[in-house]
């Protein structure tokens, strides 16, 4: 069976004031793909992810999510089921207990009363605990999130994504502030979950090594353009060298 196209970008362009952030990008990503986004700082990786997440408006071009234009999705439940985002560890609410941060993935489905009540007595607790179990943090469910280490916090963010259960996961530098051992740990867990749930993953990474180790396809950006878009096994050292070359050496 042919897997369906989850994301299709047609000539998308984005400017910040006069600077070009994304210059006419086109690509398509199928369900189940694990795509790594690499490239030098300022190449437009974060901007591209934010565009797909609908957080920044495009200047021109079209983005299709599951063959529907991005604009047709309203914020809320339907969109939350389509796309979920994970970033560096800074995107959890620090003073809340871990379990509430995990259950925040359910907010799109809950009404206000239920979500307020849940702050007193956690609702759908089993769901959250199962998710925490899978990231190995079940025993920390009732601890204050800021007391957890960086790697643990990133795993809490993953548990939240599992509860939200979107079809596409966008990960923006998910391991940027972690040491190599924790980073390996987090990426292995993330890709395993994505494969099990038949989700689609796009992750921006600063490390080529991780991109090769965990992902099936690599898209590289340079100065807002696609430099190469290849299956992982076809990415050569020469190409990578050229990608990260500084301008002065051109």
């Amino acid at each position, binding site marked *: 069976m042919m897997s369906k196209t989850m994301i299709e970008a047609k000539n998308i362009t984005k400017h910040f004031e006069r600077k070009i952030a994304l210059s006419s990008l086109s690509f398509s990503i199928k369900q189940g793909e694990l795509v790594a986004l690499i490239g030098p700082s300022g190449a437009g990786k974060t901007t591209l992810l934010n565009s797909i*997440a609908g*957080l920044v408006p495009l200047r021109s071009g079209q983005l299709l999510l599951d063959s529907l234009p991005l604009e047709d999705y309203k*914020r*809320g*439940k339907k*969109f*939350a*089921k389509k*796309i*979920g*985002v994970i*970033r*560096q560890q*800074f*995107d*959890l*609410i*620090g*003073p*809340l207990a871990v379990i*509430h941060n995990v259950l*925040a*993935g359910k*907010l*799109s*489905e*809950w009404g*206000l009363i239920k*979500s*307020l009540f849940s*702050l007193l007595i956690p609702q759908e607790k089993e769901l959250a605990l199962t998710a925490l179990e899978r990231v190995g943090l079940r025993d920390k469910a*009732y*601890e*204050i999130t*800021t*007391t957890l280490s960086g790697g643990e916090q990133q795993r809490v*963010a993953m548990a*939240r994504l599992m509860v*939200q259960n979107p079809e596409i996961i966008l990960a923006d530098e998910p391991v940027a502030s972690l040491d190599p051992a924790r980073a390996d740990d987090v990426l292995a867990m993330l890709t395993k979950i994505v494969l099990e749930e038949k989700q689609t993953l796009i992750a921006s990474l600063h490390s080529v090594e991780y991109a090769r180790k965990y992902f099936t396809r690599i898209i590289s950006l340079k100065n807002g353009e696609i430099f190469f878009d290849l299956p992982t096994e076809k990415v050569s050292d020469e190409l990578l060298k050229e990608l990260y070359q500084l301008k002065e050496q051109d």
Partner: protein
Amino acid sequence: MMKISLSLQLHKRFILSLLLLAVFIWSLTSIHWNSELFHAGGIPTILQIVEGLIKPNFEPSILLAGLESAWTTLAYAVAGMSLAIVYAFIVGVLASGTLTTRKFSRIISKVFFRGILGFTRSIHELIWAWLFVAAVGLSPYAAILALAIPYGGILGRIFADMLNDVPGEPIIAIKAAGSSRLQMLFYGYLPLVWADFISYTMYRFECAIRSSAIMSFVGLGGLGFQIQLALADLKYDAVWTFVFFLIALVICVDGWSHLVRKGLTDHKRKKGLGSGWISVLFATLLIAGSWIYITIGENARLFELLSEKNMEYAKTFFGGLLGINQDDSAFLDVESWVHALKLTFETLEMSIMAIGFATIVAFLTVIPAARNIANGNLTLKKNWYNLPLFGFIRLLYIFSRSVPELVWAMMIIFIFKPGLLPGALALALHNFGILGKLWAEVVEDMDPRPIRNLAAAGASRIEIFFYGILPIVLPRFLTYILYRWEVIMRTTIVVGFVGAGGLGMDFKLAMSYFDYTQITLLLLCYMILVIIADFASETTRKAVK
């Protein structure tokens, strides 16, 4: 040209400090410095007051009266604060614009609700009290509402600022998970700010105790009332007894708020009944007790406030303020404006003098008052006198800030003749303790490494101060000076009530003669001052950054 602008940039803070110093010296010229400043009997009065301080009156009847009025003061403060929190929460959230999605409606809601908060906090609680008493008579609610309105304004503004300063990433993440605006508020914004908000509220609660004490000066009960009575009878020993009650109350609240803040910063969760829950329980009991006391003990009914008679009074009063049915409104008269603006100018001078005096005293005392200098941690030097000196100055600070400006003014007015100087001194006496405490905390929070490095390199204490400590703390010191100056500006009118010059004195006269339009005129001038102070300090603060 480049060189000049470069050196201007480099010495910006130094030049600014010189400028502020020059303004202070200029303000001193408004006083005629001669023996005419004192009352003939000023010196003997000082001796009597000091005698009372050394030998306060501890008769059982006085102690009992002190205890009872301390409770009244506390109850009014608690009730007022509880209303203020409700007001601050609702209006603060609206003023932060976190609930609105569209840019346009967000700007509208920000401007509108921030305007409301700004207006309510620009008028001093004592003036609110006076207005309420004039409008609805002597009811505890006059005191409670008078506290709740300006304190709610201050809390609400800080709350809105906190909500606006929340880090963006967690909020975007919650939004990306598909939550609604209200869910974002309860799962994102509130958990992120509540610890800071509670800390700030506790700090404000301490101020509310002092404000509540001075509510007595418009005829509402409490510690201030007892102080006022004792002063009128020239019983200085009893005056100090009540002042000590007030200080004790402030210290208790300060201690509690210290505990709460410490509990909030330590993230560790303990099993069982932690200090946090005890505080919550205590606060609940305190709030319930205060309201029960006020509604049952003092037999005050909220609906009585809205009785027909009161509505009639209020209508006359506020109508009078607007100049309805009056032939010659003071605020339409050029001569009245000239006179009022002259008073405004004097008040401005008084506030500058006050912050100047306070700054000088705090500057001279702050170094030994910092804990890390007293125990030698910062400078790696320690003398036997450091710790006693530290204790003494800290005690002085507590003493200074626990006594409200108004009480200081009432005592000083026995020594000095009415005018700007006693007002400035009273304000300075209250503020140097606050300034000193805030500054000492800045020094305590400093990164000790650069200073230790200097000390290890053999720098003397004076050298360490000018090369290490001052450059690091100066911006924060300046910020606090300006912040206190804003507060002093709001309070100038209050010390005027007891004859310490400026707008306040005329305000009291106008109140006594029911000269409504004159009141309006003076209030307008006062608000001009507050706006000037806000603007000037905001600009200077930006320049220091």
